[in-house]
């Protein structure tokens, strides 16, 4: 049986990764815009 610890790691890890994903996308967009390299 999967442990509580494993389930917690999955869920918290997933939420953190989704949040980091948003930050990464916005950061990349900022740098691409700054360098005029969006398109």
């Amino acid at each position: 049986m999967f442990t509580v610890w494993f389930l917690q790691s999955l869920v918290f890890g997933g939420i953190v990764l989704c949040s980091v994903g948003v930050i990464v996308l916005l950061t990349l967009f900022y740098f691409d815009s700054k360098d005029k390299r969006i398109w």
Partner: protein
Amino acid sequence: MTLTVVNFFNLLAVGPVLDQTAGYVMLALFSLVWIGLGLWWGRRAKSYDGFAVAGRNVGLALGTATAVATWITSNTTMMAPLFALQLGVWGSLAYATASFGLFAFAPMSGRIRRIMPKGYTAVEFIGRRYGLAGSVPFLVISLFYALTWLISMSMAGGKLLLVLSGIPYEVGMSVVLLVCVLYTLCGGMYAVIGTDFIQSVIILVGLVVVAVAILLHVEIADVHQQLSQRRPMLLSVAFPAALMALFNNMLFGFGEIFHSNVWWSRALAMREGVGAKAYFLGGLLWLPVPIVAGFLGLAAPALGIGISEPDTVGPLVAANLLGYAGAMLVFVVVFCSLASSIDSLLAATSDLIVNDILERAAPGAVADATKRRWASFSIIGLGLVAWCVALPNIGTLATVLFFAGPMVGSCIWPIVGGLYFRRPSPVAACTAMVMGSGAGLIAYFAIDWFVGSLVGAATSGIVFALGVWLAPSNFDFQSLLDKEQDIPPALPLPSSSPAGGAS
């Protein structure tokens, strides 16, 4: 990711979580935004190169976002909770393995960009690599997959808007499809990739908000305890069907991404050196989405939310915890998930029609403006076909998409072998695709859905290896570049201005 464990379209009647007026307002608002953005970005899409591959200069931010958004379909956000509810923790993990396809495609995208820098489609590569013997079955599989995915997404649009807000199926399906056709028609790949960025941010933020709201109401330890008491199988490490689903999903994902022009056209649209990073990052950002969405399904019993209608478990949980705001958030997330997949399919499939059917049939070189016009007509045509087939709302039609699992699974080895090795021959590729598809479909009907892609990919791999051994080739990859140089560029009209450049 398009695979689901159940017939997605057997959505049962359930009261909408939003009222109809709010649904119409949200629908109108987002429709106007996407069409406006399509028109705005459409100013760049004057040439065919701009329209089909966004000027081949897409940067890392938009490249990453488009990989994430396109792979998040309405199934990912709506069905992942159901997957978890039926197959437990393994169900979430099985769904998440679809991201491995993006990781594996990362190095392939760089190679695709290098060996055919002026190319447009996956079928074009298979045609140059394996000739007619390879391109015919591959084109058939590609069109079958693209059309069934497009139709099933259109049907999903109608069904989901009905379930979420009570908007009649015909109206919801028609509006979602029309909006996607209009903005893809206006802006081509520029609009598709640009809107994908906004959609991916909205989807990720929406999921985080809903998941955090759940965690404010319930402890994960309580979820675990409830599951271990009521449905211990969902926490079981040894859950045979779920384990089979894991490998099947992974192979279906590989097949879907490796063969589909949705992904090839993006690889060709990205700036040199960007593709591999964008697909790898895209996989990393997509990986947690089914896990977080799946948690909605696992948490439902602990929250005391009745699961009489399992297909709607995600929206029900969100609406219960966040009230009206939660329901609106789910509406937006689902609408973005649908649009990001439908627009990609329209653009990528029109590339197949223009480059691999119409241009090949045309005598002599085709003018740039003519290809641009053909692309517009084919997008309208695809939209009309999808609308006509989706309108009668025949649930069994959607299950046809699942036949694509064995078929795309059988394309994995011919594509990878053809991209990296000289010895794979047209005979090996053709027989692998045909026999792999056949064996996979037999397994699908004789056993069950969760072995179709496994059998298809395994048979195709064995046949392909035997074919390469018995009838090897000695392909010269330089000829791909030489052929590109031989192909006369589409004839530009004096009035057409080049697309692309820094924004």
